[in-house]
């Protein structure tokens, strides 16, 4: 059981909430309170748009414990529109094949259960191909 660890990450995981540096305007994800660009304090929260593009990806067939129920799945490095690179699963690919540069958008999905079927459910960001009006 790792309740506090997951609970502390609710905001950033549910809504892709990071930080913005008040000194140089660098957008930071995950939040780390110190700006990686200018080294000064950066504690202002910033909600990312969730839009980005696939920077690189790989498909996992032998999943780590807790993720085996949804394998195989694709994990990508997603370059967010605002700058940061985040690691996340791709979802709802359907017939689409992931490719570098593919535009994606953030959705909140069920990541896994903490332990067995009695454990808490952990929700967080994944990315799907941008869904356009029909």
């Amino acid at each position, binding site marked *: 059981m790792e309740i506090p660890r997951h609970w502390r990450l*609710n*905001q950033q995981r*549910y*809504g892709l909430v990071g930080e913005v540096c008040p000194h140089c305007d660098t957008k930071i994800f995950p939040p780390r309170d110190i700006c990686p660009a200018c080294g000064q304090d950066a504690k202002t929260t910033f*909600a990312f748009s969730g839009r980005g593009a696939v920077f690189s990806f790989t498909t996992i067939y032998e999943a780590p414990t807790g993720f085996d*129920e*949804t394998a195989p799945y694709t994990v990508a490095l997603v370059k967010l529109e605002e700058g940061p690179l985040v690691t996340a*699963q791709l*979802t*709802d690919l*359907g*017939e689409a094949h992931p490719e570098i540069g593919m535009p994606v958008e953030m*959705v*909140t*999905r*069920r*990541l896994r259960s903490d332990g067995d079927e009695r454990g*808490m*459910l952990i*929700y967080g960001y*994944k990315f799907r191909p941008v*869904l*356009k*009006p*029909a």
Partner: protein
Amino acid sequence: MTTTRPNTKLLIPAKPVGIIGYGAYVPRYRLPAREVARVWVGGRTSGLPIKEKAVPGLDEDVVTMSLEAVRNALKRAGIDPAEIRAVWIGSESHPYAVKPTSTIVAEAIGAAPHVQAADMEFACKAGTEAMVMAMGLIGSGMARYAVAAGLDTAQGKPGDALEYTAAAGGAAFIIGPAEESLATINASYSFVTDTPDFWRREYQRYPEHGNRFTGEPAYFKHSTTAGKTLMEEMGTKPADYKWAIFHQPNTKFPQRTASLLGFTPEQIKPGLLSPVIGNTYAGAAIIGLTATLDIAQPGDRILMVSFGSGAGSDAFDITVTEKLLERRDKALKTQDYIARRTEIDYATYSRFRGKIAMK
């Protein structure tokens, strides 16, 4: 100051209320009814209740689907989520038996912590139940905005009649003052009796139903009485409404209710989605409303009647305002989700829905 309520069966808020924003969600996977027929009745395809139903992916549940529907509603509403004072989610498939769906949704949209949150349950009318409660909260002046949503990942026993139709999806609304609304809710009416047509006991995976008993004494009695009484009390007739939506457990039931009440097939057409997404339970009537709002024009009057087993119906009299035109393109439309479609077979469906015993 005291106000005397008129002697009416209607539920009319003291201050006028309406829909500020609306959003739908339908997952991408579709299980054709003929696939269920192939596995369970030797492929007999006569009399199938729908064409296909929407199935949630492995990482989807009522929390994740509610979130996307509510986020779509917020895009249209254009309000600060911190101004929302209630998040009410109706469903019969909340992921936890104990722990609210609504707290997760409230946190994720930025409505927490100054907010009321609760999960509603009333079979297929849990979504409209949340809407009526939100009308009360806003209409009394207690709060400015409330979220009312209804979504399900409905359960159907393998091989049962309900497995053809038990689907996933739903809709969400931001309810607020009428002057900010894209559609005003003029009144609602609720008709409820103790009618045991469908239920699921605690710890049971699948619901039980009364077969033919689910028709006349349950669905038809409640939905037609609710629609008829609302119109009587409002002094309206079917021709006064441009559009109508009835709870849609299959294709035929809402068509028959419409016909019994005197509505034409054209009036129910934009909101009749069960043939292509199935019965989304708590989402079924209200996703018909979002699809209708997607095409409605200012001045159009809409009648919506839900039905929940157990049993009851909520009926709503709604009028579209000018604000709909500037807001509806701000989020994906119901038909955008329906057009996004990946067909799956019964084996994939069994895996997605956790019907394969792993231990």
